[in-house]
């Protein structure tokens, strides 16, 4: 029983920490990685609440596909920033 409470406490603390960090961190890439990790912890939490449907959906969409979309969007911002930088150097 106490082990289960400990697991839940670690999960809850981890979720709040990761959510806060992914908002506060300045590097966008780090924020995305933290957000995906947050999704995985939330998946485990849904599984602990025996909401298996939500857990599967969160793992596949929340952590997986959203992470991929965010990373591609980050890549595009990165390239756009590089382009601006280069133009600034030339001019």
């Amino acid at each position: 029983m106490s082990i289960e409470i400990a697991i839940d406490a670690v999960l809850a603390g981890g979720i709040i920490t990761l959510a806060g960090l992914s908002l506060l961190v300045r590097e966008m890439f780090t924020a995305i990685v933290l957000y995906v990790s947050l999704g995985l912890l939330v998946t485990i939490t849904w599984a602990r609440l025996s909401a298996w449907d939500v857990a599967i959906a969160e793992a596949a969409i929340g952590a997986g596909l959203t992470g991929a979309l965010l990373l591609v969007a980050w890549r595009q911002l990165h390239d756009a920033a590089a382009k601006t930088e280069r133009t600034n150097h030339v001019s």
Partner: protein
Amino acid sequence: MFLKLEFQEHKLSSAGLSSATRYLLGILITVLSAALAFVIIRSEKAAPDLATLATNKLNLSGVENPVTAVLLNFRSYDTLLEIAVLLIVAVSILPDRLPIPAATAKIQFLSNMHPHSVNPVLVGLLKWLIPLAIVMGGYLLWTGAYTPGGAFQAGAVVAGAGVALSLAGHHRFIWQTASVRISLSLGLLMFVMVAAANAIITGTTLQYPTPYAGSFILIIEVAATVSIAATLLLLFTQLKAMVEFTMKGNNQ
């Protein structure tokens, strides 16, 4: 050697608003969140008998998984509108001006490419992973009637397989083909057709007669899986295409 990249919003974040405004906004948001949390804690448990109601009526729904029963039978109107929203997203992001790759008379949805760099480990892994993901999607779809699973999860897993395939660089998806547009709208079309057929036979749109409810739900879920997978994959590949477009601009 390496340019240190700065995103524009880093510079803007402090320049755009005065510090007084930012603190005021912070206080406002904190107060609102606290009020919301307070209301949620204080409020009575919302409609506590809904879960038991759904469980009691489960034998009328045609499936054995209460989540699927609620999503596709008891509250199928919600799901119908969700699938319509997905179609709107897909239509709004469909490419309209990307060049159609050189003219073979028949365009394939999945066309071969010759990537600049090949990652043999990734390709070797994907040969096992993609069939596995597709089988897993089918399993999730089928098992949705009895245990956790269903169209959304299955569609997401299949879309994940497509994302992995497009990341390997050997293939790319051409969204101008007609078959793609059919598969994007198949979910909504099938849902509406089932509702219409049901309306003609029984007189009500989304109240399936119990003996046929299971097969109706399966038909809708298969179609919805195809549409969901296609829409999610379209979102990813369109963003990726935009990245490649930007990079081409960089190299010039």
